[in-house]
């Protein structure tokens, strides 16, 4: 995983971007690149379509950089933007006839309710939670990060003997280390508002 580079909050990075600080923009892109890419991919779009949406979302962010009203809600803004662009892409591909809502919103804003199944809110919440867990993981030391990554992110977690060899520790220490790292992760998540 591309490691999270900046310890600054979204608000601080946004303020940096508004001051013309290129490093702040780079930090924002690195922070959210995986989450933004995951959204169209989760909706079943291929790499090319996902790449277009990715570019579109960040270009839109850049255009709106001065006017984003709630900097503390940047993540929500990004997710919503990515979701809508994904819907729009899928809607065009399926040539669905959109219908206008009762309130008279623009016709291209609403889609057949059956399409909700493509990217339901639960799926998006899950993606955001996973983003949060990865961010918290990046805050733990290298040892915890490596251990938890091997235990929980690998398709086939290796046996403790292999993990011990990879980390250069004894097999017997894996269990307690893992418990300590999980506790640290839960604490870090609590600080980020994860329930």
């Amino acid at each position, binding site marked *: 995983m591309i490691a999270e580079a900046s310890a600054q909050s979204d608000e601080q990075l946004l303020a940096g*971007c508004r001051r013309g600080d*290129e490093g702040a923009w780079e930090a924002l*892109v690195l922070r959210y690149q995986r989450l933004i*890419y995951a959204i169209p991919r989760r909706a079943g779009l291929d790499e090319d379509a996902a*790449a277009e949406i990715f570019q579109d979302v960040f270009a839109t962010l850049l255009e709106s950089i001065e006017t984003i009203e709630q900097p503390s809600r940047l993540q929500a803004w990004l997710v919503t933007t990515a979701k809508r662009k994904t819907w729009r892409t899928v809607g065009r591909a399926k040539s669905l006839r959109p219908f206008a809502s009762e309130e008279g919103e623009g016709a291209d804003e609403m889609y057949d309710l059956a399409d909700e199944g493509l990217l339901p809110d639960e799926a998006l919440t899950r*993606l955001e939670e996973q983003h949060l867990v990865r961010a918290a993981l990046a805050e733990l030391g290298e040892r915890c990060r490596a251990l*938890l990554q091997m235990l929980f992110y690998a398709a086939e977690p290796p046996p403790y003997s292999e993990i011990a060899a990879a980390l250069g520790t004894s097999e017997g220490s894996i*269990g307690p280390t893992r*418990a300590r790292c999980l506790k640290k*992760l839960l604490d870090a998540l609590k600080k980020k508002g994860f329930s």
Partner: protein
Amino acid sequence: MRLTPGHIPFTRLADLAEGRLSPEEAAEERAHLADCKTCSAQAAQLGHLAALMRADASEDAPAELVASAVRMFRARRVQDGQPGLLRRLVAALTFDSSSLQPAFGVRSGQAAPARQMLFSAGDLDVDLRLAPGGEGWTVSGQVLGPCKGGEVELVGADGATAARATLNELCEFTLLPPTPDGTYSLRLRMDSAEVEIPELSLRA
């Protein structure tokens, strides 16, 4: 069989979440969880966390895609006609005469020629000449592209303005007074945009 009543140790809950317990052991712990709110809350939390991590099938976006998004910042545009919004651009170096081979026949003792640098920011180019002199460096230049006039200043690391100038009708300028050696940022303020050259090193 649990010999002593009480809470399930965290390590054991971690084993459960990790799936390291045998079906019998797992069943035994789950039986206790049914009776204990504290343990079941902790187990649920760990279980949810483990499930999230296990199900994380995301990948980093391709490196070139990420790099391309990062590069957007330099070339950014704000919608035309929006009042009060200014383009703020950071200029990139596109030419530096000091990176060329020294000219043949330049003997020591001759005055060093002015260093010429060219910066680009969106559709603007800034042509700079850095001339060393007895009193310090004289930075002069011209803004090329959509420029109707403006102000320019050289700001020191301490944030104080070391030299300033107003652009003439050809958008040329000479920053005064001459400035001592150091690292400065050059800031151009025009109607349409603000351009910054963040690290201008004035040194022989």
